[in-house]
């Protein structure tokens, strides 16, 4: 049946020219056999395929692929630049941290030194003040001793005077003749003795 239709269509096509689409489509519009194997359509498909591939190749090789390649390369460059920058900044941060640590250690050392100096100064002042106080105390003590000595000397003299006066009075009271000089010598001899 298919063969008959094909033959009829072929005859029809030959007779009427452009009435039928070809030998591969039946009168009711259905395919006869596999449309893939219809020889009438092959040149058309090949022609348009070649045109299509040419257009796609042109568009890709001239516009699309260089553009995407450039974008990817640029992005790669940006990424590696950014990574390098980040690396650099990290190094800087490490250096800054080290500098900070050093400064901190130095500040600590300075503070210790200042504390030690202040301590030494205070000690010196304290020593000086103690020395001065000791000296003053020594002076005061010496003065006091002198005064004590004076006072005790004065007391001895007063005792001697009192003794002489008392001896002279006693002599007078007993009826003797009180020679002041002799009494004084006698009292002095007694006091020494």
């Amino acid at each position, binding site marked *: 049946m298919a063969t008959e239709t094909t033959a009829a269509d072929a005859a029809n096509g030959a007779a009427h020219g452009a009435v039928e689409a070809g030998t591969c489509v039946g009168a009711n519009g259905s395919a006869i056999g596999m449309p893939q194997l219809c020889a009438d359509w092959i040149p058309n498909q090949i022609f348009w395929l070649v045109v299509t591939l040419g257009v796609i190749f042109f568009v*890709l090789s001239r516009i699309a692929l260089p553009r995407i390649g450039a974008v990817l390369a640029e992005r790669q460059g940006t990424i590696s630049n950014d990574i390098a920058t980040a690396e650099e900044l990290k190094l800087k941060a490490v250096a800054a941290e080290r500098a900070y640590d050093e400064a901190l250690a130095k500040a600590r050392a300075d503070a210790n030194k200042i504390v030690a100096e202040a301590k030494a100064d205070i000690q010196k002042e304290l020593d000086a003040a103690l020395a001065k106080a000791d000296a003053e105390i020594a002076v005061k003590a010496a003065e006091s001793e002198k005064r004590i000595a004076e006072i005790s000397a004065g007391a001895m003299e007063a005792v001697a005077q009192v003794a002489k006066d008392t001896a002279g009075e006693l002599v007078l009271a007993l009826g003797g003749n009180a020679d002041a000089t002799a009494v004084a010598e006698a009292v002095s001899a007694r006091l020494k003795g």
Partner: protein
Amino acid sequence: MAQEAHGEGSALVFHPLDQFIVKPLFGDGPVMWYTPTNVTLWMAIAVLGIVALFVYGTRGRAIIPTRAQSVAEVFYGFVYKMIEDVTGHDGVKYFPYIMTLFLFILFSNYFGLLPMAFTPTSHIAVTAILGFGVFIAVTLLGFVKNGPAFLGLFWMKDAPAVLRPVIAIIEVISYFVRPVSHSIRLAGNIMAGHAVIKVFAGFAAIAAIAPVSIAAIVAIYGLEVLVAFIQAYVFTILTCVYLKDALHPHH
């Protein structure tokens, strides 16, 4: 075959192959080699799709890509890496050719999945041109790059000396079968999927089995979405393998 199923007063009407008919876009005249047909239309749609994604989508040239640009970049990177991995670094200069094949097949397959669409890659005439084009280009390239040393591809140096001629014959046969399998694999997969969907659609005319039929169409359609990509991928990676043989014929 379609003819017999049709008619006879049956409720079932199967025309699974009618979707592959090539028709003129304007009028009913004969299909001459230059006639604009539905082949032209759907190939043009594929071209427009590629231009939309790869030219319009990347117009910003942004460092931080838009969605369309990142899709284009994914395809670029996918094919580029495939060539680098399979063919080696000297295959990269054929990148635009391989990208052209990949994108044409991919976009034709996917636009062909739209209802009422025509799928150029379901036609052996189309895939045979692609397959034989790759075959002829790769063979010529092999001889141009390596001279007669290209024939070393068929001569296994590490095989026992007795077996070498036998292996050489098998290798030559397999080499010449490559373009046939390369093109029929693509056309066969696409055509079979589309025809099966149409057959299930024909069964939907019977109310009792319509739900089953529609579920089957959905399932097959999902499979076809995978097949559309996988076949484009397979065609491209095989092209890369053949190109590797041409550039490095010594195993």
